[in-house]
């Protein structure tokens, strides 16, 4: 029953590049010519020498068409052509030679400018001129889809984030960092822009590992979602009905308008967005569980430093940390210290996922690059300041040294308000 319900919700991968309009992909002009199939090998070999297609590597040199009576017609790309240039004047002499020696009759045609990023794009491209399609060479779990079991987990963690976001009157953003290999919450945080207790140490660890009730309460929420069936999350739902002005990533510049005077126990901190606080907590947890590197010679483990986009499988890491949730922190710490031989400390948040109710702003999104988060799941887009597709698209910035995969969990706005009102007392 649960699985059935999850089927109605969707998890959408937010790609590195803005997808092109399928039927209107950018094109470029090239000179092409029909050729005699008998000469094809010779001509293509020669063309690859004298006129390689430098910027169009995804484009196939030869187009093969089967004509009405089973006749095969081959056309070959000779070279790139600039727009409006239908003269062959600019063509290099070696190519001119080839054209005349095989008596080719060049014509101008279009090819797709960019390599296809999806099978659908590729199929459309081939209607114009054949291209090759290489599905991504690296895979971060989920880009190619989630199993029922995994999506169930993803929804539970997202609901946990939503519960947190709505847990205290004003709706804020919330972040939950998870070790997916152990299905374990590493840290969780709400925006602390207007309610930052100076007692930092206090806030950091308590949230770490020992949330025994996490799953049971999440289950209840899941079932509540189920009673409000068939959320039609479409484009119109991108506009939430309420402004949610308490969400820091949505209104990063709002803090300055507050007239609030700081009181003894509360400070305002304009940069303490949920994701920043969650990263801080995960670091505090790391320092707590693995107190000192000098003492035990432990080195943080980063599995794929040079090629972070292949994003280190968490399975390679020992699952010793926090798999036994019922322990308190001290027991956990003791256990981990005693099993140092088995235990490898992950480097920062390598292999971890983060769940955010709202798409993070640029500051938060970059913080998650720095901390090496593996996957980001968010529920609602952030048109004001979102950095994962809305305003910027950090997952597509090639120069960055780390790339996470980004997913949107499609949920209706009502899900925010169901979190608390309908959870039965247990």
């Amino acid at each position, binding site marked *: 029953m649960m699985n059935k319900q999850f089927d109605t919700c969707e998890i959408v991968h937010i790609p590195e590049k803005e997808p092109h309009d399928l039927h209107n992909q950018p094109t470029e002009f090239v000179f092409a010519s029909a050729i005699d199939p008998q000469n094809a090998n010779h001509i293509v070999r020669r063309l690859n020498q004298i006129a390689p297609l430098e910027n169009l590597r995804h484009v196939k040199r030869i187009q093969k068409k089967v004509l009405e009576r089973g006749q095969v017609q081959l056309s070959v790309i000779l070279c790139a052509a600039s727009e409006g240039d239908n003269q062959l004047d600019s063509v290099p002499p070696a190519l001119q030679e080839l054209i005349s020696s095989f008596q080719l009759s060049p014509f101008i045609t279009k090819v797709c400018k960019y390599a296809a990023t999806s099978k659908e794009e590729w199929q459309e491209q081939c209607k114009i001129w054949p291209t090759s399609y290489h599905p991504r060479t690296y895979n971060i779990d989920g880009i190619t889809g989630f199993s029922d079991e995994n999506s169930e987990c993803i929804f539970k963690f997202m609901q946990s984030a939503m519960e947190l976001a709505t847990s205290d009157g004003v709706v804020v953003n919330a972040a939950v960092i998870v070790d997916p290999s152990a299905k374990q919450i590493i840290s969780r945080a709400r925006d602390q822009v207007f309610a930052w207790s100076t007692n930092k140490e206090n806030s950091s660890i308590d949230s770490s590992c020992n949330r025994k009730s996490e799953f049971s309460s999440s289950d209840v929420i899941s079932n509540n979602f189920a009673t409000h069936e068939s959320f039609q999350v479409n484009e119109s739902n991108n506009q939430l009905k309420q402004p949610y002005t308490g969400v820091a990533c949505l209104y990063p*510049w709002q*803090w300055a308008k507050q*007239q609030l005077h700081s009181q003894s126990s509360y400070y*305002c901190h304009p940069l303490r967005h949920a994701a920043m606080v969650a990263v801080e907590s995960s670091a505090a947890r790391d320092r707590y569980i693995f107190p000192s590197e000098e003492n035990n010679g432990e080195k943080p483990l980063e599995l794929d430093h040079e090629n972070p986009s292949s994003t280190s499988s968490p399975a390679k890491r020992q699952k010793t940390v926090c798999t036994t949730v019922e322990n308190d922190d001290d027991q956990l710490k003791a256990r981990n210290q005693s099993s140092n031989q088995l235990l490898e400390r992950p480097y920062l948040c390598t292999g971890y996922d983060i769940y955010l109710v709202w798409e993070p702003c640029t500051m938060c999104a*970059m913080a998650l*690059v*720095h901390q090496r988060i593996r996957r980001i799941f968010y529920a609602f887009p952030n048109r004001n300041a979102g950095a994962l597709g809305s305003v910027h698209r950090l997952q597509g910035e090639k*120069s*960055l*040294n780390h790339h996470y995969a980004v997913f949107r969990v499609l949920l209706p706005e009502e899900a925010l308000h169901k979190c608390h009102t309908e959870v039965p007392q247990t």
Partner: protein
Amino acid sequence: MNDSCSETVRLMKLAIDQANLAMDALEVPVGCVIVHDGKVISSGRNRTTETRNATRHAEMEAVDVLLEQWQKNGLSMSEVAEKFSNCTLYVTCEPCIMCASALSILGIKEVFYGCSNDKFGGCGSILSLHQNSTDSPNNEVPLGKGFKCTGGIMASEAVLLLRTFYEQGNPNAPKPHRPVAVASDKNELELVHQ
């Protein structure tokens, strides 16, 4: 003109002092100072290794000092905002995308930096968040605040620090699969702010 120039260099030297402190603590050597009314009111240096929190860049450290100080002194949020709008940051390396966003959120007035940050830079190298100035049409909450930004102040000193750091190897960094020795300035800067 010359005076303001030498003043800029004087303040950048203080930022470099901070970077040196980071180096001594085996942290990536990036440092900064924040100046208000011609006076240095805060300083910071990279602290990512010690905290195991890769967001603890020099700028974040220096900003946290101020926020705590000002609120201890009873300033309201609008007064804090007013303060930041009169602050200038001197930092040895171009603020990364995270820090540049943070500086925009805080509404800082101006930034001077040393070397550029080809891999993460948020003030022109990768994104240009300092130009991010859009007032909302209804004049309520701004959708972005820009700040004035000037690079290349004592850039070679800043680069030299980073080169020294990476040539001697960062004992706290996880073992990279390739040697740490740096072939060019460009590669070296790619390692900044890790």
